[in-house]
Every structure is written in C-alpha cells, then in structure tokens.
C-alpha cells in the first residue's frame, strides 16, 4: 500500500493511502475529540467535533471522513479549530438537558467529557427546551431522546454490527430521531436487545434500564462471557463486590464491540439469592450445611468406598463444558489418576461427538478450521442445521455482515425459518434427518459438472477415488425423493457454492446433535475439500459449539475416549508421556460417555458419581432416565452454583464459584483461548471449581502437585498440543490465538471419506409429525443461570406448540387450543400456535418448554453418535373439551 506523508501539528508523519486524518492522528498519539466516531462503524462525519484545519488550504475538515493526501498541513488544535469546536459543543449543550447531576451516564458521558475538556460550563446561549421523552417499557434499555445528539452510533451499530436494522433515522432536520419501523416500542420490534446500541451511545440517551447501581464504577474487569460457544470478551463493571454492568470487552477481534442479550444482561445470576454459600451434606432425607472439612471428608470417603467395593470403573465424573480449561484438566486428571477411570465426560459431548468423529476422520483435527474474521471474507457461506442468531449470535452477526456489506451469498439449509433465511440467496428445506443425502447430492453435482478445484484435490487430498463411487446413487433426482428439495434447487446451490473462490460452511447442533451427524459432517467436509475451501482466508468449516467451553473441555481431554490433545488411549507413546508426567498407570479401557453413565447407573453398574456444574436431572433430554440413574447411585457428589434438582439428590454438595469469581481460560468454538478473570469475591464459602478439586484430591490422600493455577497452566502448556504459549500472566486479560498451530498443520493433507447415511424407514403411521426443538435466546442450557437472571425472563420464548397451517386445518386445531403431544417415549400437553412459516408435517416446541423431556427417550439405541436430541416423531391429539 502506498505511503502518504503529511504534516500533522508541525511534524512530518506518514500513513498508508486511504487512512483518514483522524486515524493517523490517533496512531501518532494526537487526541482529537469525537462523538459520532466509533472504530468499528463506518464514519459519517455527523458531529463535526473532529474538525481540524488544513493550514495549506485554510479549510476546516472533519478529520474522521477526510483521507490523508500528500501536502496536507494539518493543525488539530489551532485557535480557529478550538473556537469552532467550542461553538459546536455549546450548540449541542444548548439543546441538551441540564440533568448531568442526576444522569446515570455520569462520567462516562462523552459529551460531558468533551465539554469539560474544552472548559465549557455555561453555554452563553438560550436553552432550547427538550422535554424528556422516555418511552420504553422493556427491562433492558431506557431511551431519553432529549439527550440524543443524533450521532447515529446506535443506528449504525444496529445496522452495521449486529445487522438487525431495527432503528434508523425518522423524519428530517430538527424533528429527526432514531425510530423503529412504525415507531413501535423496541419490544414490539425485531429488536433482540443485544445492547450494542447502549454500549455505543456517547450520552445518556440510551442506557441500561434495570440496573443495580446508578453511576460510574471505578473498577472493571475484562473477562470471557460464560454462555454460548462464541466466548465474546466482556467487561464487567464492579461496585462493592457486585457486578453492576456488562459491556463489550473489545479484546477479541471478532466481537467488534457487540454482545447479545445474554452477554449484556444475563450476568444477574452471579448475585442470585439462590447461590450456594456453604457445602451441604446429606442428613437422612435432607441436606444440611457443613464445614468444608466435613464435606470434603465425606465426599472423599464415599468415592473411596465405591472404588474399593466395586472397582474404579464403577465411578464416573461428569465435568462441565462451562468450567475452565484448567478445571477440566484437573477433572480428567482427578478421574484418571485419583479414581483410576476414563469415565469422564460432559453433556456437550452429546452434540460434539459427531464433530469429533466427523471432522477428526477427514481433517485429523476436530474443530473449526478458521477465524470468525475470515468467515466475513467468504464469497459464499453455507449455514446448515443452525439457528445461529440464537445459538451463536456473534456468528450470525458475522454472516449477516458478510451478506449485507460484503456481497457474500448465503445458502441456508434448514427446514425451519430462522433469522438467517431472510438473508439467504438459496434456502433449501430438506426433510428432517436427510442432510447426508442432500450434501452428497451437492457433492455429486460438483463432481459431475466438473466444478471442483482439481489442483487442490490432486495436490492436497487423499482418497478422492472413494468419492465418485460412493456417490453413485445420490443424483439430485434421487436426493429430491429423499429430502423433498427440488433437484434443480440442489443443482443451483451446488453451482453457487462451487463457483465461488472462497466458501465457508457453518454447521450447528441441527446436524451434529442427531442420528447420522458424523456422516453429515463427513459429507460437508467432502464438499469443502472438493472445492479447496478448508483453510485459506475466507474459507473454512465452522463447527459451532453449544457451550462456552465445549471445545476446550474436549481439547483438554475431559472426554472418555481421548487423553489431553486428542491422544488416543491406545496410543502407547502418548500414554507413556502422560504416565511419566503424572506418575501413574493410566486406565486403558475407554470410558463411558455422558449418556452411557446414566444408562449404566440406572442398571446399577455405576455406583458413585461426581457431577460438576451440570444438572442432568433437568437438562438430559430424557430426565426420567437421569432421575432414575441418580437415585440408584450409592453416592453422588455435586458441585454447582445453585441447589439444582441434581444437587438436591446428592450426598455431598460443594458450592462453586461462578465465572466472575475465578481465574482461568475458556476456549471458544474458533479455538481462541479467552481469559477468565476474577471480578468479585465468591459468595459465602463457595470456592472456584479448581480449588475444590485440589482440596478433594488432598482429602482423598492423593494430592495433585499444583500449588496454584499457574502450575496447572504450565502443565497444560507442556502436555497439550496447540496450547503451547497460551500462557497466562497475572493482571492480563485478552485472547490468545492458540489455534494458529493447528491451522498450519491443517494446511497439510486432508482426506475424503465416504459419507452414507439414510435413516432407516420407520413406521411413522402412529407418529406422523416431526417435532423440532427450537432454541431460545433467553433460555440457555438447562436454564440454571438464565432463569436466575430476571431481565432475561422478560422475553420468554412463547411456550406454544407451533403447527403448520395445513396440518392445523387437517386436525381442525384452532389457535391457543390445548393439545396432547404423543411420542414413542411419552406425552406432553401444550397450546397450539399456528405458524405459517413451518413446512408441513413439522411442529416445533421451544427448548424451555416444561415437560418437553418426556417426549424423548434415551434408554435404548446406540451412543451419542446415533442419538437424535433435537427432533422426534410425534402425533397430536385433541383433548376432548369438557362441555
């Protein structure tokens, strides 16, 4: 890029072509006040505060929109500039209410900061009265238009960052104001309450409504969001040992200063009155408070006894994808070294195992292959089986930005309408469970029409020969009979995908969490390999994770089939390395998966269980199985924030610290390691999970050799591939790009694998409809945390059974009528909602629907890879009305 030299405040400086004067000044360390400027938003030069004088021409220029040109002689603070700047601020203040003393924006108000900086107290102008117009009734955002300075930061954040476009200017001149379509209040608009507008508002016009503290806090800690797999960086503002506000952390490149409703308003659970504050031990029927010594002793004794009586494999540890990498490391060490079993798993595995085997088989590495930033460079994005706007909002923002501003084309494969479908160029709606046939047909079209990247395939891939043969039957016409997607649409999608130089695939639990998931993933990897879209910029496969640290927990080895770093249990060399380091003989037998633990517990083979941060009694799709399993145990230890339904059944309960009360790291779905920082003290006697684990190991008289967290991190660095140098220093927050080494290793060979899966024909005469479980933005995981964040309850997912209009007519159902939903496993009752957007024969219920678990049975059938967790076959029965 061409360098351009200009004179800036009498100094000769140079920047690259296209840079604005403001950018160059800030880079040089010269501060220019701005109100409408925001690094991630397109500059619009609205506030005019950033004006500077070009002494070469005598012109006053808005520096945020003025590119540097040779020969410029810029003075950022000439008397003329200062005079004009002061006038602008005085005019702004003349129509701004004098409510600074009571305004909650306080010292965070940029208008006030700038006015103070310029020494403007009295404007010397007659006031233009601005009546306070406060309209909102939602619990998130309060808007006072009298304080609005029309900088359009909220509008631009809504349009450019999160691409919801809920608000824009309405009317003109003095009458202009930001408004939703139809000028409805936000809660009646498309607003998702992500809080991006509040985070960028420079004045008190947009503020958080229900907040525990008025004013500006002195301390803040940048940490990592504990909800979905995006792992956004979030800054917690702290007052008196209380988290009072969460704002975008801006440490991570991809989050660009926007969170979602969970990140912005979901932290209230930290200070919930329901938090456990002391350890509890069972005393007959009830639990009573106990000292740490007593609880640890009792837990150690119970686990030891089970081990002695029934052997190590009668024990199991259920870790959590919500715990940090360090805690997961200690957990697997605890299971393998102290208990002597590989029975360690977490609930995210049920959705992740398909990724581990699918991606692992083809790429040799089970995870997302590129940065989220690279996704935005794609020309074509294929989103399959993911309601991204709900399950991974940050990814949805990136996809929408790519489509809206970078002309990317989006192919959505989903039977259900989602936020993304409105942005899609092609929307394929296959029948539920027919993804493999569809993906294979796409692949076949690409091969048959010779649209593939022959050079890439011949140089970088192996086993191409298996492909054409295995795809023989998957002609688009055949796929049409299976999937219901017109053959021409399949051809069109394949051509679109193959024609682009850079294509990405994003997939989520819609394919990973169902029967044949691994095959679908293999099929989509084939598709990506065929077109050379695995690794380079703008290409990649993005495997979305449901939980914030699902990727980390698996990387770190808290899974039954792998040692840390995906080393197989039968890999003698790797085993020896770990055995030497840990000074132990590792168990050889593959451990039980999350689901198998419950099945075996119900059969009496698992006698003692240690559950950390999970609530299977509620969150397992089949809660009946979970409860039966838990109640047949001899001994149950639960470690959690709350007295969950699972904890209520425990013999010993340890109170754990939340993400805001401990240190550590989370690995997000991209493979970026985000630091978790302690913001507040844990309530009562609760302790971070890792401390509890170390103390429990001590109580079992097999102490683990770590004095502090740093030692654990050092060992992870040493033993876990790709975590080298993820390194953690006191007082640092931020992100480490640990995956670079993996991505580089990916640049090597990849392999084509046969993907073949057609779900067996089942007799569906009894249960002709397919029920899809709909994810919800405000109900996350088992809802332990989100249900204790009062503000998130404001947007409850409507607890209705959505039914397609044609099906409703056939069954002569009317809206709001209560019906019985019957599946092979059980039944539930719900009120009907007619949904015009659903395809025929498909009904859907929100994940938070009480009793939805009764419709699923996990008792029979295979393991994680053959489970279908988000759909099942049902029929609807009318409830005879009482006359």
């Amino acid at each position, binding site marked *: 890029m061409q360098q351009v030299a200009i004179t800036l405040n009498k100094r000769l400086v140079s920047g690259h072509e296209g840079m604005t004067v403001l950018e160059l000044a800030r880079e040089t360390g010269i501060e220019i006040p701005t109100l409408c400027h925001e690094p991630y938003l397109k500059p619009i030069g609205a506030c005019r505060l950033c004006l500077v004088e070009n002494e070469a021409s005598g012109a006053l220029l808005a520096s945020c929109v003025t590119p540097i040109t040779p020969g410029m002689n810029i003075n950022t603070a000439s008397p003329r500039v200062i005079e004009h700047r002061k006038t602008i601020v005085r005019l702004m203040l003349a129509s701004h209410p004098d409510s600074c003393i009571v305004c909650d924006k306080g010292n965070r108000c940029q208008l006030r900061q700038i006015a103070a900086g310029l020494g403007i107290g009295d404007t010397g102008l007659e006031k233009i009265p601005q009546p306070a117009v406060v309209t909102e009734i939602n619990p998130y955002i309060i808007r006072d238009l009298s304080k609005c300075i029309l900088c359009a930061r909220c509008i631009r954040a809504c*349009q450019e960052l999160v691409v*919801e*476009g*809920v*608000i*824009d*200017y*309405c*009317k*003109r001149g003095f009458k202009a104001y930001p*408004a*939703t*379509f*139809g000028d409805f209040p936000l809660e009646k608009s498309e607003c998702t309450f992500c809080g991006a507008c509040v985070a960028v508002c420079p004045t008190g016009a947009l503020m958080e409504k229900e907040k525990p503290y008025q004013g500006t806090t002195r301390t803040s800690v940048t940490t990592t969001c504990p909800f979905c797999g995006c792992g956004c960086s979030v800054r917690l503002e702290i007052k008196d040992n209380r988290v009072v506000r969460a704002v975008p952390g801006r440490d991570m490149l991809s989050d660009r200063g926007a969170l979602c409703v969970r990140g912005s308003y979901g932290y209230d659970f930290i200070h919930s009155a329901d938090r456990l504050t002391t350890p509890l031990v069972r005393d007959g029927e009830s639990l009573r408070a106990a000292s740490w010594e007593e609880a640890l002793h009792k837990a150690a004794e119970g686990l030891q006894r089970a081990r002695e009586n029934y052997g190590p494999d009668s024990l199991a540890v259920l870790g959590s994808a919500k715990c940090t990498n360090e805690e997961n490391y200690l957990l697997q060490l605890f299971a393998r070294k102290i208990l002597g079993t590989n029975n360690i798993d977490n609930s995210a595995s049920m959705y992740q195992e398909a990724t581990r085997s699918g991606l692992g088989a083809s790429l040799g590495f089970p995870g997302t292959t590129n940065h989220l930033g690279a996704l935005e460079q794609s020309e074509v994005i294929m989103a399959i089986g993911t309601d991204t706007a709900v399950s991974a909002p940050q990814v949805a923002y990136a996809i929408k930005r790519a489509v*809206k501003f970078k002309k990317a084309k989006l192919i959505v494969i989903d039977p259900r309408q989602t936020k993304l479908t*409105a942005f899609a160029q092609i929307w394929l709606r296959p029948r539920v469970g027919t993804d493999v046939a569809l993906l294979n047909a796409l692949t076949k079209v690409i091969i048959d029409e010779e649209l593939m990247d022959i050079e890439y395939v011949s140089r970088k891939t192996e086993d191409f020969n298996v492909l054409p043969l295995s795809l023989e039957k998957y002609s688009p016409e055949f796929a049409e009979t299976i999937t219901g997607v017109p053959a021409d649409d399949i051809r069109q999608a394949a051509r679109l995908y193959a024609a682009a130089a850079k294509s990405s695939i994003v997939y989520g639990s819609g394919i990973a969490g169902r029967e044949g998931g691994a095959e679908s993933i293999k099929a989509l990897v084939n598709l990506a390999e065929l077109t050379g879209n695995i690794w380079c910029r703008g290409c990649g496969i993005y495997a979305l994770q449901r939980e914030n640290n699902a990727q980390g927990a698996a990387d770190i080895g808290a899974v039954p089939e792998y040692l840390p770093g995906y080393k197989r249990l039968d890999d003698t060399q790797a085993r020896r390395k770990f055995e030497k380091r840990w000074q132990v003989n590792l168990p050889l037998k593959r451990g039980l998966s999350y689901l198998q633990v419950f099945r075996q517990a119900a059969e009496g083979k698992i006698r003692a269980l240690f559950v950390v941060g999970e609530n299977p009694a509620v969150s397992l799709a089949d809660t009946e199985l979970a409860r039966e399993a838990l109640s047949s145990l001899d001994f149950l230890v639960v470690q959690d924030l709350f007295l969950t339904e699972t904890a209520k059944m425990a013999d010993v309960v340890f109170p754990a610290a939340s993400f805001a009360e401990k240190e550590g790291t989370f690995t997000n779905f991209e493979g970026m390691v985000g630091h978790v920082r302690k913001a507040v003290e844990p309530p009562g006697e609760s302790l971070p999970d890792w401390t509890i684990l170390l103390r429990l190991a001590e109580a079992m008289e097999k102490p683990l050799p770590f004095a502090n967290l740093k030692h654990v991190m050092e060992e992870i660095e040493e033993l876990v591939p790709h975590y080298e140098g993820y390194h953690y220093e006191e007082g640092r927050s931020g992100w480490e790009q640990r995956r670079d080494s993996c991505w580089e290793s990916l640049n090597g060979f990849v392999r084509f694998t046969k993907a073949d899966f057609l779900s067996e024909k089942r007799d569906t005469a009894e249960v002709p409809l397919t029920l899809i479980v709909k994810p919800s933005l405000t109900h996350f995981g088992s809802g332990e945390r989100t249900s204790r964040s009062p503000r998130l309850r404001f947007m409850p997912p409507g607890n209705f059974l959505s039914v397609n209009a044609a099906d409703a007519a056939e069954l002569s159902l009317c809206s709001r009528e209560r019906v019985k939903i019957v599946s092979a496993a059980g039944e539930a009752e719900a009120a009907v909602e007619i949904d015009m957007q659903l395809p025929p024969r498909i009904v859907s219920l929100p994940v938070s629907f009480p009793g939805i678990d009764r419709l699923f049975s996990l008792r029979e059938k295979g393991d994680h890879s053959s489970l279908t967790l988000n759909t099942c076959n049902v029929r609807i029965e009318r409830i005879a009305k009482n006359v």
Partner: protein
Amino acid sequence: MCNVQKIDQVDMGQVKELVENYKNQKWSLIPLVQQLQEELGFIPPETVPVIAGALGLFPSEVQGVISFYAQLYTEPRGKNVVRVCRGTACHVRGGKTILKLVKQQLGLEEGETTEDLEYTLETVACIGVCALAPTMVVGSNVYGNMNPKKVGQLFKKDGGRHDEKP
C-alpha cells in the same frame, strides 16, 4: 393528479409486481417509492417491509427515507390537493380568512384528507402570483383574487372538477 381509488386494503399483489422490477437494486428505492405513490396515491406503511425485502434494506431504513422527503406520503391523499397561500401578500389581502373558510367548507384541518378521498388541505408559503392575492391552488389549477363567495362556489358538491382550465 394521481389515480386514487378508495383504499381500504392495499392490493399487495400490485405492490409486489411493481417491486419485482426493482429487485435487489438498492439505488432504486426512491424511483420505486415514487412510482408506488404514483400508482396508489400514497405509500401505505404495510408495503414498506415488501419494499425493504426486495431491495435488501431494513424496513426502518425505508421508513427513514420516506419520512425524510416531504413529497412522499404515508397516508392516503385526496384526489384534489387544496393549497391555500399563506404568503405575505395573501395574508395582507385576507388569506387567513380564506383558509378559515376553506377549512370550514371542507371540514378539514391542515394536512388532513376528506373521508371520501376527494380533498386534501395544505398551506403553502407562496405560489408566486402575489398580484392575484389572495390565492389558492386546487389540483393543478390556480385561483386568484379569492373571496368568500368564490370559496363557496369552488367546493359546491357538483362543481368539483378541477382538472380543466377555468
């Protein structure tokens, strides 16, 4: 003026057909809404999501543009737009009374439209024929030297033809 039917329900089929011609062309927003207004007489708010969807814009963005321009209307307009001049010359010659009488005659306030969609009342700052003050414009016809009697004749039930030269 425009070809106005009494609109109870907007013919969305017609709207969609119109919008289809401009699909995926962001630049075409203004010509499109102008044409829509030409056809329907105004831009019904329920057409905004259709326009936004076709052009790849947000409904709030489209609303922003429509509300910016004074010539774009989101409410039905009368077949005849009555513009009474409020300029200085007309004011001195009794323009205020003329406006009052027109309001009485039509039963409208400024900016309103009669229920039968016959008339819309507006005021203008000056129409440039101060020599004929007080003046008013109905449809495309200019009426000068107005007086109460003339106002009465103008809005007689049967005399409502304003598309011919007087």
